[in-house]
Every structure is written in structure tokens, then in C-alpha cells.
């Protein structure tokens, strides 16, 4: 038994040396070669994906935030069908569009074109 106090601030060389000998693993060259092969080989697909994980997550968060903002704005502006009706009535001042939408018969292409182009 040696005389070192267990609370010594200094390294216990004797304990350190026997522990080192007990923990040393042979064939260090083989291990180094094995790691160096991995270090120099190209990245695997999951390592590449791993590298993209953080920017990907940031992009996804940005998209979610943008979608939330857009949705919030849409809800605040009210029912979108009202806007469509307004648009239709504005573009069909002569009543063609109203007749077109209320008719049971299929529309005539020329009439449809004329109404969407402001009947110019």
C-alpha cells in the first residue's frame, strides 16, 4: 500500500502506472489504421443528412411560421367567396357574367372570353 492520501491534489504515479498497464489495449496501429480509413472515406448518406438536419429544421420552422402568418391574414380578411363575387360583379357590369353563372346551359366559349376580358 502506498502512503498517498486519497485527497491528494497530485497524480498518484504508482496507481496511474498500474491502471495504465491494465487498460492498455494492444494493436494500436490496427486501431489507428481503422480510424484513418473512416476519416478519409467520403461521408455516408446519413452523415450528409445529419449535416443538413439543422438547416433543414430551420427552413421547416420558417415555412411553418410563414404559413401561420398567411393563414392568420386570410382569416382576418374574411370569407374569400365575398371577394370572388365582388370581382365577378366588377368584371361583368353589363350582366353577362350573372347570366352566365345562373344559366343551366353550358357556356359559349366566345361569350366567356368576352366577359372575362371586360367585353371589349
Amino acid at each position, binding site marked *: 500500500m502506498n502512503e498517498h492520501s486519497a485527497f491528494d491534489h497530485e497524480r498518484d504515479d504508482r*496507481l496511474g502506472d498500474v491502471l495504465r498497464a491494465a487498460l492498455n489495449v494492444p494493436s494500436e496501429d490496427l486501431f489507428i489504421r481503422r480510424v484513418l480509413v473512416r*476519416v478519409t472515406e467520403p461521408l455516408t448518406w446519413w452523415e450528409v443528412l445529419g449535416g443538413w438536419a439543422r438547416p433543414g429544421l430551420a427552413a421547416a420552422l420558417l415555412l411553418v411560421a410563414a404559413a401561420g402568418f398567411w393563414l392568420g391574414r386570410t382569416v382576418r380578411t374574411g370569407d374569400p367567396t365575398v371577394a370572388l363575387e365582388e370581382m365577378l360583379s366588377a368584371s361583368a357590369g353589363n350582366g353577362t357574367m350573372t347570366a352566365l353563372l345562373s344559366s343551366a346551359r353550358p357556356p359559349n366559349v366566345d361569350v366567356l372570353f368576352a366577359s372575362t376580358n371586360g367585353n371589349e
Partner: protein
Amino acid sequence: MRPTVRTSGVQDAELAKRAQRGDRDAFGELVVRYAGQARRVARAILASPDDADDAAQDGFLAALRHLDRYDPVRPFGPWLIRIVANAAMDRRRRRRVRQTEALSPVTPSVDPGPAQVTDRRAFHAALRAALERLPERQRAAVVLFDVEGYSHREVARMLDVPEGTARSDVFHARRALRKVLAAWREW
């Protein structure tokens, strides 16, 4: 495959900077320098030499992937060994390690007789078994402090505990190891 001689006299921090710029040879030199230390620390945590080598390799590769997080102003060794220790602890937690107390071959500088080799193997096996009975953090702490020569402060940083806890871990580990080894005539 080994790095060239031109890197052998360069400081760790310089090698790490080169490695950060993509110089794989520089990182290879760091692997050569720290392989022994990384394997010992991993083995102290994992016991099985094969698992320890896998964990040490995982640690090196993780360090390579995260080199951008290394601050070259700080010493490279503790940064790397912390990653290796974490890799070993993760591996240990992920699966229950089989207690394969395989006796590692000893490579002494002089050629001892068979009885002496047997004694030394048994001594080392007993030491590893005593180490294995310690809590994981105490094991790592005593090896980092007494084997690898890191300070209490560095050990604390590597194990992510307060310095007082690191001191206490070293204290308890030493006490337990000395008690077990007191019976051995080599001690």
C-alpha cells in the same frame, strides 16, 4: 495511411485548425497522438476492449464532424477526450455490456517467465474488475486524473460536473481501488 512526418512537430491546436480547414492528414496526426488515451478512457468506462475501440472510433469521428465547435484557444486533448468519454457512456447506456473479462496480452519490455506473465495478467484482470465495480463517473475520473494526468478542473469539465464532484469521484475511486489491490503482492 499514417499521416506524414511534416505534422509530427506541430502543436495540437495548429493541427486542429488545419483539420478545421479540411486537412484530413492533420486530423490523422491527432488520431495518432490521442489513440492510446482515447482507448484507455473508453475501456475504463466500457470494460470490453472491442466496445472500447468502437466507442473511441465513434468519438474520433464525432470530433471530426464537429470540429467547427472546437475553440483552438483551448487545449485539444480535453475537448476530444470529453467526446470519447461521452461516446463510451452512451454506448454503455444503450446496451448492457457483457462482462467479458478477457485477459489482454501483456507486452513487457523484458521477457518474463510464464509464472510472472500469469501473475501480471491476473493482477491486471483484478484491477480491471475492481474498476468495473466502481460507478461509471468514478471510473472515468480516476483514469483521467491518475492515468492521463488531467487536472481536477479538466476532469470536471470533461465529465460535466463541478470540480468538487470530480475531486470526490477521484477520492472514492482511489480508496476502493487501493482496498482491493492491497492484497496483491505487486502492490
